Structure formats: C-alpha cells, structure tokens
C-alpha cells in the first residue's frame, strides 16, 4: 500500500471504567491515501476527534494499530512519538495555534527550530507567498486577526514538509471568508505540492473541499463519500440527525451498542 500515508486497524479507545465507560472508538479501520485531502465528519461524540488524535500520535489507543508514514505508532515511546510529530506530522488546531510570545515567523519555523535544523528558505518563502503573510512575519499573534493566525498555523504545519497534515476543526473559529481562505490553502497544498491532509470538521461546506469524506458515528466508520459536495454531505448529515443512533447501528452493525453493556 505505497499510496497510504496513514492507516488505522481495529482501533479501540475506551475512556473511563465500569458504569462510566465510553467506547469512543469501537474497532475503527481506515486508510488515508497519500497526496489526498480527507475529511472526517460525524456528530458530536462520534469519535472523530479521538480518531484524529490517535492518528496524529497525540493520544494512545486502548488497542489496535496506527501506522503513519510507514511507522507503527503504537510501538513508539514518548520521545520517538514527539520526534514523529515534529518531523512527519503537521498540525492546525481550532484555536490557540500559536505561541503568543513568538512572532509569526518564529511560530512558522518553530518545529524546524526545535529540531535544530535549518529552515528551507525557498520553501518558506513559497509558502509565505501563497498564504499572503509576507508583511505579517514580524507580528506577534495578538497583533494578527483570527484568519491571519490560522494562516500562520497552516504555514507552520507545512514548513517542515511533513508526510501528513492533521487539521482539527481549523475553521471552527473563523468567519466564512477567512475559513474559505484557509480551506483553499489546504486544497492548494494537496493539489500543488502533493501534501496529504486529514481534516476533522462538522461543517459540510468545509468537507466539500476534501477529496473524500469519512463519516463516523458511535465510534464506527459508518460511511464514506468520494468527491463530496456541500449538499451531498448535508443530506447525509441530516439522515444521521433524523434517524439518530438507530439509523447507524441498524444499518451498519446491528449487534453493537454505544456504551459497553446492554442497550
């Protein structure tokens, strides 16, 4: 599977114990192709964020296997995990993406600086140019607008040329124009630089920028859709909402229930 940049096998993540036990991921197996833009969608509590955290080596699954860029993440210790995140993974979060004491430029080169490597100036300038951040580089985060901050975060995610970029609700805090800019940039990074991007979102219009959408519900992958449009995604989401849990459990895995134990 040379074209798979990240994959999950039988991924289980359980929070809590006994009565309070929650199976956030209940045996998820999914592959993400290299050079593609994948969106993960699902209602609150579906496990989409947990899936992304496990894939991005931010969280350890209870059981199952995660492979990122041909590395079996589940076997790694903290130091190796940190290095993996630093060198092969890029992040864009919903909020609080930047270190407030550093300038935009310092924030962008942070992973490269931490690793003690030289910044690829040409690549840096190219990314900055595309994002239109040229005149904002010496500004501190609190001097930037929300959209600008998120574009800086995107630049940081790309500047170390990671194997994969994970974006967790990157447009959650942005107005629609800024959101479109950020999503447009993620799309361009896939199209022009062959970047692999995985994005968690609950916004159908954001998902429409992706090549493929994976729907999660109750800790299971319930469906996926190629070349999504806002309308198609919206319809699919609506069906989740109207049928609720039963719609998904009935159609996909009728024998299982969300909370460990009986229904």
């Amino acid at each position, binding site marked *: 599977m040379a074209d798979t940049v990240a994959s999950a096998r039988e991924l289980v993540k359980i929070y809590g114990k006994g009565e309070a036990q929650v199976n956030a991921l209940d045996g998820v197996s999914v592959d993400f192709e290299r050079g593609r833009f994948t969106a993960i969608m699902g209602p609150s509590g579906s496990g989409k964020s947990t899936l992304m955290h496990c894939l991005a080596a931010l969280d350890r699954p209870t059981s199952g296997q995660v492979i990122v860029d041909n590395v079996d993440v589940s076997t790694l210790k903290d*130091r190796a995990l940190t290095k993996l995140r630093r060198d092969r993974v890029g992040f864009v979060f919903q909020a609080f993406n*930047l270190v407030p004491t550093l300038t935009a430029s*310092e924030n962008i080169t942070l992973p490269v600086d*931490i690793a003690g490597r030289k910044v690829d100036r040409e690549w840096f300038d190219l990314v900055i140019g595309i994002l239109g951040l040229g005149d904002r580089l010496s500004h501190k985060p609190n001097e930037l607008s929300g959209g600008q901050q998120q574009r800086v975060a995107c630049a940081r995610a790309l500047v170390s040329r990671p194997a994969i970029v994970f974006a967790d609700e990157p447009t959650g805090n942005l107005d629609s124009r800024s959101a479109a800019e950020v999503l447009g940039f993620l799309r361009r990074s896939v199209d022009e630089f062959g970047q692999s991007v995985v994005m968690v979102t609950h916004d159908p219009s954001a998902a429409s920028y992706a090549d493929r959408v994976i729907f999660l519900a109750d800790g299971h992958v319930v469906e996926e859709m190629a070349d999504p449009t806002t309308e198609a995604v919206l319809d699919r989401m609506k069906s989740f909402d109207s049928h609720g849990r039963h719609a998904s459990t009935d159609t996909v895995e009728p024998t299982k229930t969300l909370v460990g134990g009986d229904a």
Partner: protein
Amino acid sequence: MFRVSIKNITGRFWTLVLTALAVVLGTAFVAGSLVFTDSIDRTFNQLFSSSSAGTDAVVRGTETAGSTGFGDGREQLPLDLATDIEAVDGVSAATPQIQGLALMVGADGTAVRNGNAPSFGLAYDPQSQTARITEGRAPEGPDEIAPESSTLERSGLSVGDTSQLLATAEPVDVTIVGVVTSDDASLGATSIYLDAATAQSYFAPQETVSAFSIRGDGSLSQDELAAAIAPVLPDAAEVVTQDVLVEEGREAVGTALGFVNTFLLVVAFVSLLVGAFIIFNVFSMLLARRTRELALLRAVGASSGQVLLAVLVEALAVGLIGSVIGLGLGLLIAFALQSVVGGFGFEISGGLPVDATTVVVTVLAGVIATVVSAMLPAIRASRVAPVAALRDDVALPERQIRIRALIGLVLAAAGVAALLTGLFVEVRSPLWWVGGGVLGVFFGVAIAAPLIARPVVWLISVPSVALAGTVGRLARQNSLRNPRRTAATASALMIGTALVGAATIVTSSINASLSDSIENDLTAQYVLSSGQTTFFPTTVAADAAELDGVALALPTRSLLLQLGSDPSAAGTAPADGTAPADGTAPADGTAPADGTAPESLFVLAGSLEETRRAVDITVVSGDASATGEDSLAIPRSTADEREWSVGDVVTARPGLAEPREFTVTAIYEDSSILQAEGLVSAAVYDEAVPVGQQVDNQILIVAADGADLPALRQELTTLVEPYLVVSVLDGEEFTSQFTNGVNQVLGIISALLGLSIFVALIGIVITLVLSVIERRREIGLLRAVGLTRTQLRRTVTLEGVATSVFGALLGITLGVVFGLSLQRALSEQGLETLSVPYVTLAVFLVVGAVVGVLASAAPAWWASRRDVLESIATE
C-alpha cells in the same frame, strides 16, 4: 459573597495549597523564634527554681562595678562570716559558695568540655538537696573528684578511673570516686565536685567568697529569715531571699538574651516579608486567571466592593489556614534551633512551649501579611470591567509601568536617605532609621524592578539562548512575558541575598581590618592562648618567663577601675568567663559588663613600656617608661572621651583594692590588640583581684634576641601541654583566632537569613507551577508540534534560572550598597578596611542559579508529564 469566597477556596485545592505554603513558610519562622525564645526562658526558670530547692536566702557581697548579675563582681566576704550567720535564730546552715573554673582530662586525653560552655569546679556539700552522690562516694582530699553525671559521661571515664584535674594551679592526678547527680540545669556547663577543703584551696585561697547559701530551719519565712540575718552582716554584705534571687536571675537572662530575641525576630520578620512578596505574587496570578469569572460576578450585579470583599475573605481564610500550619512548622524550626544551640554547648531543656502569645502573634502576623499582600491584587481585580466577562482575551488593567518605576525609585531613594541618616547623622533611634531605610529600598526596588527586568533578564538569558537555541529563546520569552511577575518573584530572593551579602561584606571588612591591624601591631612572636572561653592557671606565665629564649611573657589580664569619689562601689573585671579577659572587649571600648557601671574603666594589667615590647604601640604624648603603681596609660580614644591629658590625676578603685589616685602618664594610639581603655601596672592587678580568681587565657611571648624560634615554639608547646586547653599560636594563627569568631557569627547569621532564601525558592516554585498551569495550552501546542519532554523541562528550568539569577543580581547589588554604607559608618569604630569578597559574591550568583534549577525541578517535571491532548483540547 461569602459563599462565593468559600466556593472559590474549596474549588481550588491546589492553588490554595500553594498560596497557603507561602503563608506557612512566612509564619513558621515567626512561631519558631517565639517558641525558641520561650524555651530558653523556661530553661532558665527551671534552672533557677530547681537550684532554689533547699536554699531560702543568699548572703552575698555588695555589687561592685562591672557586675554581670551572675554573682561575680561582688565584694569578697570572709568564710567565717558563716559562723555569725548560723548563730542567727532560724538559720539552719550557711554554706559558702566555693566554685571556680576547673577541667578534667577525659579518656581521650583531652579536656572534657561541652562546646564553648564553661567548666566549673565546686565544693561538694553533703547537705545539699540539689546535688547528690548517686554512685560511689563523696570526694575526700585533693586527689579525688566526683564529676557530675553528664560530665562523666562526656569524659568517657567511669568511677574508679584516674584522670587529671586542672584548676587554678598546675594539673593534679586524681581518682574518680563518685558521680554527682544535680538538679541544677547546667545549660551544658561541665561540673566537677571536690571536697570542701580542696575546693577552698583552689577557689578561695584567701578564705573569702562572694556568697553564702542560707538554709532556714523552717520556723521563718524567706522574708523573715532575711530580715533576721541582715543585722549581723558587715557593710560589704547583703542578704536576699531566694525568690528575689530567682527573679534577678531571670531579669539578667532576659537582658542577656534580648539580643538573641531581637535578632531572631528580625529574621522572622524578614521571612514574613519574603512570604508577603510571594503571597502578593500568587494572588496577582490567581486573580489574573480568574478575571473573567470576577467580571461575570460584576456582570450579574456584584458591586466592585463585593468583589473586593470576596477576594479578601478568601485571603483571610488562606492566611488563617497557612498560619496554623506555620505554627506547627515553627515547632520544628524551634527544635532545629535548639539542636544548633546545643551543638555550641548550650543545652536547652525547656521543651517546645507554645504560649497563647505565640499562637496569637503567629496567626495575626500570617493573616495580616496575607490580607495586606492580597489587598493590591484584590483592588485591581475589583476594578475589572463587567464587559471583560464577554471578551475572549482579557487582561487586568496594568498600571503605567513608568509611573510605577517612578514610585519605586522615589521610595528606594527615600530608603537610601533614611539608611544614610540612620548611619551617619546623630538621630534618636538610628536602628529604626536604618531598618526603615532598608525596607524602603527593598520595596522601592521591588516596585521598580519590572522596569529593569526586561533588559536585565534579556542579558541574563544570552548564554542560555546561545547554548540552548530555540529552547533558550522560548525560556527567555517566558520570563520576559510578565516582567511584573518575574520581578516580584525575583524580589523575594533579592531580600535574603541582599542581607547575607551585606553581612558578608561587613564580616569580610572586619576580618580585613582585624588582620591588618593585628598583624601589623603584634611584635610578640608567639601567643599562648586557650581561646575565648577557657582559662588556665597563672603559673603558665611564670613558667614561660623562665624559659631561655623568652624575653617577656606578658599575660593579658584585665580589671575595672571604678572612677569617682565613692570608694564603696568598685570592682574587679571577673576573670572567670564572664569578661573577655583576652582583650577582645567590645569594640567601643566600654566595660564588658552589662552597662550598669558606665563610670568604670576597663584596663589591662601591664605597664606601657612592657606592653610596647609585645605590641607595636605609638605613644602620642607623655612618658612611656613610667612604671609606677600609680601610673595610668590611656589610648587616644579614652583621652578624647574623658578629656584627660598627661599629668591629670584620676581617683579610682581598682577591683577590690582600696581606692587610690592614678596619674595619667602617657597617651597612646588605639590598638586593636589592646582593646582596653587603659593600662595599669601588674602590681595593681594583684591587689585588685583575689588570687582564686586570677586565671589567664592569653599570654604574649616576646622572644629574646637571637633566640631559635622553632626551638622556642617547641619548648612552649611542651610547657603548655599539661594544661590541655592552651595552644601556641604565631601571629597569623593568633589573627585567625579573632577572625574565626567573626566568621562563626557570620555563619549563624547567614544560616538564619538563608531560611528566607529557602522561602524565596518556594516562591519561585509556586510562580513556575502557576505559570505552567497558565500556559497549559501553549505547552500542549509546543509538545504537539514536536517539543520533547527534555526540551520542555529545559525551557522551564531556564525560565526559573533567569528569574533567580535576576533576584540574586538585585540582591547582590543591594547587599553591596548596604555593606558599603555599614562599613563607612563603622570605619570610625575600627572598620577601616573595606573588603568586598568578590569571589563570595560570585558564589551567590551561582547559588542563585542553583536555586533556580532546584526550584524549577518539580514544576518542570510536572509540566513535562502533562497530557498533550488534555492541554490542547478546546474547552
């Protein structure tokens, strides 16, 4: 609003613990000092009341000049006065108090001593109700002794063993025949009991003593007994009841320990002050974190007064809890202090008394310090606008940093002015000026510190940025992020460092001044010395003078000249450990006593001509060769103070001798070796001091011309060997005997002030922990984008080090300022040489860095263990 306060407290367990910790440490030393001084007090009370058992009254010689209140410096009474007293109806026995200095040799061949505590020889009284033979039998004859049980234990010997006794004559071989158990709290002094005749031959060879213990037959009360005895006493004697004696003893101890109490309270105040800085800082940080919550309270209708009240009630509760725990910790500190003092030979048996006063003072101090420290942050918090609740990124309004700096600088300048006034201008209570000035400087600098924090911390961080790259830069940004906080945390460390720094400079200057003058002035080749608290028989001086290579053996013996016309109130300088007979009198040259006899002159025995052979003394005027018994040579300082000049006639009573007229024959330049107010001939001393009280602790040895010095030293060493406590010192060793004492005092002061550095360290821990909590998400982000745990720990550590080094720098700077001012102010009193110990100060900087590393260890580890996800998860 009270409910809000309570909820705030219970809901924030850990932050409460941290805040309370600052209060705990601040108040612990207050409680510790109070408990410690109470325990000393109680020890003495036990001492005095237990020794009173079986004694109803004391007949003693009337007080003479220079009395220390411990029964010396009194007229000598004939032993047969006991017969007259015993003839009085109601008196059962009158026992002369025969005692003096005596040492015994222990199993290891050295003198049995307990630190610097004195060593006594006493007459064993078979009828005593406080000292009984508990093993073996009572001593009989000059070759038997019965040591007190703890003394015997210390010696490593047991009943039946042989030892040597060193009293006022040459050492004698003795056998231990018994053990005495005494109810008298000895405070660590060693005691050896002898039979009455032997004790008398050593300690009362002239058949005189200074006191008798009186036992009644039970028919009279103490007062009645005293009244009955009074008529038979001579003019030179007085009778006091045991109750009065106990009270006198307590008062004397109170005076003697007043200095210790004051010093401990100053140290306690310093740690409370440091604690207050930390409390202030913690409250500022906690309230900054809660701005939105406070704004919400305001938005739903709470007045700013109510917000203020809520915060203050919270401070009150934290202060209360912290002080109570501090009280407990104080007991530990008091116990530690007792152990330290015990190590010096002063055993405290008073337990750990907790008085109501201790509880009230500690809790009040803690609560007031907390509430006052929280006041400013609380006021600032109460001014938060309700709209802040709706904003995402809020900060409390920061006052203009420039106004702040101005206030700080003005305060610091006022502090310096007050300090200088106290030191150089004649004012009523200079100590208050100095103390207030120092406080002013501390507060001023602390207030202005945020202004200089930016550039200074930036500079301090240059090495860490150079060495640690991005990690160093992150650390620097973190310490620069909130200069106010960094400065407040550093200020806590500054206080302790400044005080220790000043003490170091003063000590170093004292040492340098002493070394300069002593080494320059001492012409004697050797000094026979037993240190400052032990004495040896006068026979050593006589024997040393007989040696071939010795041109002069000059013992340093001191006495008091009672000035003026009243011949009934003169005295001796007691050469028994209560006066610094080695010449190390207080630097101001006054009498070594408790200051009740200002009209006496503290003089040394020895003519100026003789003394000049051992010490380089410049004669200003008069005849240095006058050796008559009526000649008095005085230093320039005495001449200036008394307005005496050569040829003046002074009427004075030397010790217990008859008053006589002295003529000022010469005036010489002051010498730090001869710290006395004058010189009289040796013959005067022999008349003035009873033979039993004549002991030496220092003899200056001038070698004969052409003498073989190493051989002479060997001979002297052989000579003093039997005396155990005497050593032969050359000039350099002699100097270090002085400087060692000074260094020891510095050690104690530094250790106590060092506690405030420990409090400051905890302050840095608290600040770092809170800033780690505050930056939870930022740390999570850094970890997410690839900062390893090691790198994160290093970031926190470098931040801590930058803060602590900043504090150490501020402290060292202020320490130099304070030390310099003190040295200048004391230069008249002999502190002429300024010595700034650069190496020690550099060590302080290193210590500052180490403090930073230690303080950041736990927060750094804690930060690195935080779950990455938990940190970045959006709420």
